């Protein structure tokens, strides 16, 4: 049993269940993203293959932050940071409608499971903290992987390399890179 990395090419087949990393949702939505085409094509293939899709609240949180930062940078030509938000929380309202619209569309995906409440939180916390040590993952990535393992999800779609060096003995996991 092992982790297998598969580089996405249009038309490939998928395992039955896949966890969506935030970057595919953002990149498929933003046609100015360098990964727009591949992310959109991959999402199309996941839809057409009728793959069961999984996300958690963490993914939605990251999705919101990514777009919030991009909106702010586009309109103000500078980076959004915590100081700006604390000084002027109205910034959040400025982009709320657009972000809420995107989130609503994600939740409309058929075969999408928002898996946050499918596993007792305590189990996830214990698992994630353990994975930080055994897999040398950041806390956030450890939580993503904890959900994947607890729910026995077959694969993950991502553009980053945070999961490339996993050493998991008791589970097969396919990492679709795009």
């Amino acid at each position, binding site marked *: 049993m092992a982790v297998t990395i598969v580089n996405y090419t249009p038309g490939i087949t998928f395992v039955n269940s896949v966890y969506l990393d935030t970057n595919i949702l*953002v990149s498929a939505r933003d*046609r100015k993203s360098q990964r*727009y085409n591949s992310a959109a094509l991959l*999402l199309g293939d996941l*839809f*057409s293959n009728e793959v069961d899709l999984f996300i958690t609240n963490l993914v939605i949180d990251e999705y919101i932050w990514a*777009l919030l930062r991009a909106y702010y940078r586009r309109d103000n030509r500078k980076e959004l940071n915590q100081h700006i938000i604390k000084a002027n929380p109205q910034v959040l309202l400025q982009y709320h409608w657009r972000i809420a619209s995107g989130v609503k*569309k994600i939740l409309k995906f*058929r075969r999408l499971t928002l898996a946050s409440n499918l596993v007792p939180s305590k189990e996830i916390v214990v698992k994630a903290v353990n994975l930080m040590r055994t897999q040398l993952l950041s806390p956030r990535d450890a939580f993503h992987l904890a959900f994947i393992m607890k729910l026995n999800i077959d694969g993950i779609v991502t553009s980053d390399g945070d999961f490339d060096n996993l050493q998991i003995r008791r589970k097969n996991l396919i990492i679709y890179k795009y």
Partner: protein
Amino acid sequence: MLQISMPSETPDYQIKSTKTDVKFNYTFHTPSRFQKINPILSGTHFYERYKGLNLLYYQEIMDTKDFEIFIGFIGEEIVGVKERDFEIYYPED
């Protein structure tokens, strides 16, 4: 003294019904790849939005409802998200 008289049998306004054939002579230009798809996909804006994607392929192999959700989601933003936007830890200024 100027006198204006109108025959009583003549109405103040007389509207004659006429039949006019109005012919519009124009042509919609729709990128060929979208011609079989829903008309909302035609036009430059939508062409740009789905540029590089073979939507006809996805329309053919995808469930109708899935396709509707798919095209409603992809490419709707033009914001230029960068890799660092996915980092959850903020570097301090």
